[in-house]
C-alpha cells in the first residue's frame, strides 16, 4: 500500500527535461597522510535539477560534508585526492584553473556553514562583509555595494536591517548571525547554494525559522540547494529529494515523502526507527547496533552489512549495485525485494 503511494508520487514528480545544474559522476575523495589513507567518498553520482532541493542525510563521518566541499573544490589541496567528474552549471569544477574557480565560487555556487559564530569574521561588520564579497565579484562602487547589502539583509528578513549593517557578529543572536551568513552567501546571486548543516547549531525554534527562510528564498530566487544534515526532521522539512549516505556511498535515494514513509535500505529503516519522530509514547526507540565503518579500510562489500539485521553471506561478496525497484528511487542493497516482503 505504502509502496504504491510512493510510486504514484514518483510519477508526478518526474523532472522535466531541463539539463541538470549539478552533475556528479563517480566522485571519489580520499585523504592521504603519512599514517593513513581515509576513503571518505567512494563513488558518488547524482544530478541536481535547477530549482531542486536535495538533502544528503547521514551520520558524522559518512562523507556528506566532504561530498559537499568537493563540489566547490574546498578540500585541502595537498591531502585530498579527488577523482571523478563534477559539473556545476557547465563548469568542470575539478579541472578549473584557480582564477576561474574563484569566479565560480560565490557567483555560481556558494555555501553556508554550520557554526554562524565562527563563519563570520569577528573584526568586520556584517555590512562590510557583504560589500567585500559583492565587490570581489562585481565592479561596482562602495555605495552601490552597500545598497545591495541592505537589500540582502532585508531579503533574509533581518529586522531593522539598516542598523544591523553596522553590527558586528558578536552583537547578533545565533539566528540573526545565520541569516547574515545566508545574506553573504546570496550576495552574488548564486545558482546553487550548498548548506552544510546550517541549522544544527541553532535552537529548535530558530531552526524552523531558518528552514522556512531557506525554502522561501530558494523558491523566490529559483536556486538549487544541496542541504547536508543528520537530522531526519530537518530533511523532511526542506528537501524535494533525499539521499542517504553511509560509508562514503549513497545507499538510498528518492523523493522525500517516499523515502520517509517507505524506506528501502535497511540503514534508512534503522535511521527512521531510531528517531523520536512518529513513535508512540513509551515505545522504546530502536537503535542501530554497532558503529559506523572505519573509513581507513573499507571492505569491498556492503559497508552496512556488519550492522544489518538482514545481512547474509552474499552481502559480503561485493559492493552492492544500485537497485531501482521504482522509477526515481534507488538503493544499494541486494535483498531489497526480500526485505520488502519481510516487513
Amino acid at each position, binding site marked *: 500500500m505504502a509502496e504504491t503511494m510512493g510510486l504514484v508520487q514518483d510519477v508526478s514528480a518526474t523532472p522535466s527535461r531541463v539539463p541538470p545544474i549539478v552533475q556528479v559522476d563517480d566522485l571519489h575523495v580520499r585523504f592521504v597522510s603519512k599514517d593513513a589513507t581515509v576513503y571518505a567518498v567512494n563513488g558518488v553520482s547524482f544530478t541536481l535539477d535547477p530549482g531542486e532541493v536535495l538533502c544528503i542525510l547521514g551520520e558524522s563521518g559518512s562523507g556528506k560534508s566532504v561530498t559537499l566541499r568537493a563540489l566547490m573544490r*574546498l578540500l585541502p589541496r595537498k591531502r585530498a585526492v579527488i577523482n571523478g567528474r563534477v559539473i556545476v552549471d557547465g563548469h568542470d569544477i575539478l579541472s578549473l584553473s584557480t582564477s576561474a574557480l574563484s569566479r565560480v565560487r560565490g557567483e555560481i555556487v556558494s555555501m553556508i556553514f554550520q557554526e554562524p*559564530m*565562527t563563519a563570520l569574521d569577528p573584526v568586520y561588520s556584517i555590512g562590510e562583509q557583504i560589500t567585500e564579497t559583492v565587490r570581489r565579484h562585481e565592479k561596482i562602487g562602495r555605495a552601490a555595494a552597500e545598497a545591495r547589502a541592505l537589500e540582502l539583509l532585508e531579503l533574509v528578513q533581518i529586522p531593522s536591517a539598516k*542598523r544591523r549593517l553596522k553590527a558586528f557578529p558578536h552583537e547578533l543572536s545565533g539566528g540573526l548571525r545565520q541569516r547574515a551568513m545566508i545574506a553573504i552567501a546570496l550576495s552574488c546571486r548564486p545558482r546553487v547554494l550548498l548548506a552544510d548543516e546550517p541549522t544544527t547549531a541553532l535552537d529548535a525554534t530558530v531552526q524552523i525559522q531558518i528552514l522556512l527562510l531557506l525554502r522561501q528564498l530558494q523558491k523566490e530566487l529559483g536556486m538549487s540547494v544541496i542541504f547536508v544534515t543528520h537530522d531526519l526532521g530537518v530533511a523532511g522539512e526542506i528537501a524535494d529529494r533525499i539521499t542517504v549516505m553511509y560509508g562514503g556511498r549513497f545507499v538510498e535515494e528518492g523523493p522525500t515523502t517516499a523515502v520517509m514513509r517507505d524506506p528501502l535500505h535497511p540503514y534508512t529503516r534503522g535511521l527512521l526507527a531510531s528517531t523520536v519522530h512518529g513513535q508512540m509514547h513509551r515505545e522504546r526507540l530502536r537503535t542501530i547496533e554497532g558503529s559506523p565503518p572505519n573509513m581507513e579500510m573499507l571492505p569491498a562489500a556492503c559497508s552496512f552489512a556488519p550492522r544489518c539485521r538482514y545481512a547474509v553471506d552474499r552481502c559480503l561478496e561485493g559492493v552492492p549495485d544500485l537497485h531501482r525497484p521504482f522509477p526515481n528511487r534507488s538503493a544499494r542493497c541486494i535483498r531489497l525485494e526480500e526485505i520488502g516482503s519481510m516487513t
Partner: protein
Amino acid sequence: MSADSVAAAQAGEIPIGQLRSRGYWRSVWVRLRRDKVSVACAAVLILIALSAIFAPLLSPHDPYQGNVVKRLAPIGTAGYLLGTDELGRDMLSRLLYGGRVSLFIGLFPVFCALIVGGTAGIAAGFIGGRTNMAIMRLMDVFYAFPSILLAIAISGALGGGFSNVILALALILVPPITRVAESVTTQVRSYDFVEAARASGAGTWTIIRVHVLSNVLGPIFIYTTSLISFSIIVASGLSFLGLGVTPPTADWGLMLSTLRQAIWINPYAAALPGLMIFVTSLSFNLLSDGLRSAMDVRL
C-alpha cells in the same frame, strides 16, 4: 542629505555609506579611555617620552660635564635638583638624557623583533607543513637558552656598544613573538570564516590580507607591547653588567651600575635610575594589560 541623516539618527538608524564610521579600533579606543589605570600609564609614558625627546631643552646642566667639588650631592642641592653622581654630573640632566638611550634601546629591538618574528610566525602558521616545521624548530633552538643568558652571550661575543645591544635584544625577542604569531595564525586559519571566504571566491592573498591579518595583528601587537618592559629591563641589565652601552653615555642601566658604589653615601640619588626603569616598565606592562582587555571585545 543632512535632513535625511537627522531623521535616520532620530529613528535610531544610521545612513548607509558610512559603514566604517564606527570601526573596531574606535571601540577599542573608547574602551581604553574608560580604563583609568591605562590612561594614567599612558600619561606617564608620554611624559617620560617627551622629557627624553626634549632633554636638551629641559636639562639644567651638561649631562657629561662633571663638577669634582660637588660629587654625590644629595637631592635638593641648590642648582642640582636631583643631586649629582659620583663624578659630580647633574642627575636630572643625566636622567633626561638617559631616557633617550634607554627608551630607544627598549623600544627599537621590540619593533625589529615584531617585524621579523611577526612575519615569520604568520608565514609559518599560514603555510603550515614543512615551512612551519623549519621556522618553528629554528626558534626552538633559541628557546633552548634562557633569554637573558642568550642576550649576555650575544653581546659578550659581539662586544658592547649601542648597535650590538640592539641586535642582541632583537634576537632574543624574535622567538617568543614568532611563537605567538604562529599559534594565533594557525588558530585563525582553522576558523570557518577563512573557509567561508574561500567559498565566496577569495584568493589566498585576499584571505591573508583581509581575514588573517586583521584577526592576528591585534593579539600579536598586545603580546609585543608586553615585551617592551622586558626589553628595557634586559637592556638595563646588560648595561649594568658592562655589556651594553659604554660610559660615559647616559643610560639608566649604566647609571645604576656606576652609582651602586655610592649607595651608602647618597642612597636616594643612586636609586633614581632604578626608579625610572621601574616606573617605565611598569607603565608599559599595565598599558599592555589595559590594551589587551580593551581589544578583547569579540566572541
